[in-house]
Structure formats: C-alpha cells, structure tokens
C-alpha cells in the first residue's frame, strides 16, 4: 500500500533528508521516497498497518505540516 503526497515546490534537496527522517518515525511507515523534482513524497505502508492507514495518513500529514511541508493533494 502506497500513499503519494503532492507537496509545495521542494527547493532544497536537504529537505528530502529531513522529510525522510521525520516520516520514517511515523507509525506504520515501511519506506519513504522523496521525489525532489516532482515535489512528491511516496510512503509505503507496512502490511500490518493496512487497517489503520487512514489514521497513519493523518499523522503523516501532520508531520509534514509541522516540519514545513504542507500537503497539497493526496493520491494512492
């Protein structure tokens, strides 16, 4: 299961590291990929997190907002 977030234009690739580190600490996250040029982040969820994905997504969105990358849109 993946969730893809469109963020505001990413300007510094060092923010990629920041996003990766912060989202990596959200419960249920298996893998985080930051697409710098597309300004997108793709979260792969752990299999066992399937049932709580809406909740996990919410905390991922909060995390992104807190570290300064508000979510513009979400897709699967």
């Amino acid at each position, binding site marked *: 299961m993946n969730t893809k977030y469109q963020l505001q234009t990413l300007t*510094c690739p*060092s923010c990629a590291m920041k996003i990766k580190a912060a989202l990596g600490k959200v419960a249920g996250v298996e893998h985080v990929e930051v697409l710098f*040029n597309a300004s997108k982040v793709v979260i792969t969820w752990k299999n066992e997190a399937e049932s709580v994905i809406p909740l996990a997504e919410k905390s991922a969105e909060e995390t992104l907002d*807190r570290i300064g990358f508000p979510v513009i849109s979400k897709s699967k």
Partner: protein
Amino acid sequence: MKMDVKSRLTLLTILLVLGWISRWLSQPLLFHAFMITAASVAIFPIAKTAIGGLRYKVIGIDTLVSIAVIGAMLIFETWEAAAVSYLYTLGHYLENRTLKKTRGAIASLLENIPTRVSIIKDNIPVEIMANELTVGDILFVRSGERIAADGMIIQGSAMINESSITGESVSIVKNIGDSVYGSTLIDTGVLHIEAQHIGEDSTYGRIIALVEEAQDKKAKIQRSLETFAQYYTPGIILLSIFVYIMTRDIRLALTLLVISCPGALVISAPVSIVAGIGNGAKNGILFKGGDVMEKLSDVKAVAFDKTGTLTQGELSVEQVVPYDIDHSKLIYYAASLESSSEHPLAKAVLRYAAQLDIRPSMAREVEILPGFGLRGKVDDLIVIIGSPRWFDEQRIPLPDAIIEQLESAGLTVIIVSINEKIHGLLAIADQIRPSAHYVVQRLKRIGIVSAMLTGDHPRVAQSIGRQCGIEHIQAHCLPQDKVRYLDQLKKQYGMTVMVGDGINDAPALANADFGIAMGSYTNHTAMESADVILSSSSLDKLPYAIELSKATTRNMKTNIVFALIVAFSLMIGVLTKHVFLSVGMLIHELSVLIVILNAIRLLTFKSKDA
C-alpha cells in the same frame, strides 16, 4: 503570524532600510531595534519548522540557520542576524521561482490535456470537468480544441494534428470508426468520440506518468553526491562545535553552521536533469531518467535495425523481369496467389497489381512453403512464388546473375514459377528513410559508429548499408544474434545503443540492455522496454537526443564542479576568517541560484545542426 513570503520580504526590506537610515542619522539604538525586529520576523517561520523537525530528532538547514541567527543576536551582532535571515528568506524565494522554471517544461505537458470537456447527454453537449469523464462517455470536440481521451470517432470527420503523440506536425484526416488520441488537436471539424481510455490509462496519460517518474530517476553521479552531503553536514557541525571548544570563537563557530549545508551541490544534478528531460519531452523525446541521459551522452556506437528504422518499412515492387510472358499476365498470376497471404511482401505485390488495375482472381489449394514461399492453383495453372533460397534448395536453376545484380542494389527478389517453369522475377524495395544517410553522417561527425542489424540477405543489407553510409553490417540475424552482436559492439567501441521501431525488432529491443524506440508513443510494449522513446518515426530526433543528453550531462558536471569549488572556497574563507556570517550566507544562496540558472539554459538548448 501568517504572512506570505512576498509580504514578509517587503516588510524585511523596509525594516533593513529603516535600520540603515537610523545608523546614518547616528541613532545606534534605533538601528539595533530595527535589525532585531527584522531578524525576529525573518527567523520566526524558519525556527518554527526547525522546532517541528527537532520533535522528530531531525536537524535541517533551518535548525542551523536558526541557531546561527539567534546566536548572532545574543552576541549582539544584530546586523549579521538580520542579514543572514533576510538572505536565507530571499534566497529561498528566488530559488522557488527559478526552480519552478526548470520544471516548467514538464509541467507544460499537462497543458495538452483539457481541464473542461463537453460530452453529449440526451443529444445536447454538456460541459463537465475532465476528471469527471468516464469510459463510454461521448465527447463533443470542435475545431481548435484538444481531445480529452483516447477513443473512437462515432460521428463526424476532422483534420487532426497528432504531433503530441506521433511527432508529425502535418494534420491528418480522420473519419467515423477511426481511433483518436487524447491530447491531439482538432484543426478543423467537429467530432463525436466515444471515450475508451481516460486519464492515466490513455496514451498521453502514460507519457506524462513516464516523464514524471523519469525526472526523479537519479544519475549515478548524483548518488555519490548525496552520500557526500550526508556526511558533509554533520561533519561541519562537529567541526563547528570542536572549533568553539578549542578557540571559544563563537563567530567562527556560527559561520560554520551557516555554510554546513552544501545546497548548490545537492541541487546541482537534479536541476540539470529535470531541465534536460523537460526539453526532451517538449521535443518528442522521452528519457527514462537521469541515468539514461548519462548513458546516452557516453554512447560510442549505435546499432540500427533495418526494416522500419533505416527504411520506412513499406515495401513496394520496384522492378519486374518477365520471362516468356506478358508483364501484366505475370503480375496477375503473382497477385492472385498472394491475395491469400498476409506477408508484407505479398501486400507489396497486391498494391502493385492494384496500381496497374490488374484484378487478381482467387487461387485454390494454396499452401505455404517452408522458408518464404507459396504454392497454389490459379486458373488451373500451378503457380509458385518463393525466395531464391527456396528454389536453390529444390535445385531449380535460376538466373543468378540478374538476382545478384538486383540484390546488390538493395532489392529483395522473389521468383514466380508457372507450371514448373520460371516465368519472372519481382524485385521489392523498402524505401530508405530520406534522413538515414544524413543521420549516420551526423553521428560520425560526433565520433559515433553506426552499425546495422538485419535478418535480410547480406547482399541486400550491404546495399542498404552503403546507401546509408553504414560500414558495420550484420545480416541474416535472428533476434538472439542481434543481442550477441550488440555485446560485441560494446566490447569493441564502448557504450552501445540499439535503435529500432519497436515493431519489426520488438524482441531484440526488449533484450538489448540499452535501447531507443522510435515512433513508439502508441506502442506500449516499446514504451516499457526502451530507455529512450522518440515520438516520431523519422530518424531526425536521434542526433538531437544524443546532443541533448551530452548537453545535460555537461551542464550537470559544470554545476557539480562549480558547487564543489564554492563549498571548498567557503570553507577556506571561513577558517581563515575572511568570510563571516552574512557573507557566508550570501555566497551560499548565490551559488544555489547560479546552479539553477545554469540548468535553466538547458530549456532553450537547440541542436546546432538542425
């Protein structure tokens, strides 16, 4: 305190100007007050995200800048605090705007998809949002509008410009029953189209998805840079702490924090790649990533497939040599037998007969001969059509001299026998693409060797090769031979790419470890397996693709070298105390901007020759 970046910058500029006026009026207190206000206004949003990051134990450039600015305020370097935070804010604002430009070419691909569409509901057109469209809807599209989905024309006819898909800018006529593609433009006419593939399922949707994915596929060189940056930042932070403990020089320690994020370096490769890929996409060339650009820029040999790549893949009868029979009688027998075959050679014979107004009859008892050939009864006469090889195997004597002469001219020869007697030869030609010779020459000029792979007879291959100016020719190739020959070229010359049309050479192209498919935006298999895809089936885009990849790679390398020099000089400057907080920030932000502006040049890159 919510404020957009623009008004924040305006406010900061005013504060800084007021500060300097106060200083000029010898009001030091006022000067410091303005500077502290400016620094506080600027640092607030930076510190906010820095704290957000700290909650996840993440240290970003925002954390370091916040420490530097707050530190500078504490040691009462108010101007430095204001300047560093101002430059950081301004730098980010400008980077944001220029970065958008590097990505603009890719973003503009989306403009070929209409956002609003008209569909026919209860016999009248209704306007809806494009994302509300469903399969089976009837699109209503008029002149000047772009089609929103792949589908079939169910009413009307129109001149359609399909350049977004086929790369051919000449409009073509389409009628009821014809397929149309999303993103193509109706020049004149009104159409009712049944939507069959929409959104990411459509051909154009797939192209966009591919480019989107490609822009973040990293070049090899980029990975090593990222590893470097990963150690560089914590390294400098440690150095800063070490310097402070050893020298108690807080100014030096804070300055080190400001320069610890090698922004220009990390951004150097991705900006060049996104601009290069964007330029390609706008010109009908899809690169599947930065790594592909890197590989193509290094290409030393190009292996062309023959049929459909160097040639147009449309066979035609070029010459007829009848023996003891009337010319049109010979064609009549040949066409009658071939009318039951689907082979491209058979189609060429039938087209030729139609041009001469010869109506073939139905052949009976038609059987396929092993190798190339057909046997059947036409008007109670036994007719055989076959390749010279087949007749050779049957030990039937052939006019060898003439066959050799025709084959040496690049023609494929087929033989017609009637009642066991040879009655004629048909020489069939595949038109060489007009640009083939020119493209091969152009590649040669930039030091790239051309080779040709074909399943055809060596004499035919030699002739076509000669006409295109290709020296290395491998004839009688099966698909697996092609891959072996590619490896051989690679050993001999270095990076080798196979170029094909994705139809006649699909297996070889899929197995080649580096392949370019041309004219293939509509060919899903070729889109999947090739590394570079050219929209049009003309060869002209090939040299451009190579030149663009070279320019992009060069641009990327320039950026990297520049960024390394800046990072190194900054470090020396700071350690020798020539660079202090604000100057460090200024150089840092400027270097990032220069790297971006350099990449933007790629968007206007044009071929020197074309």
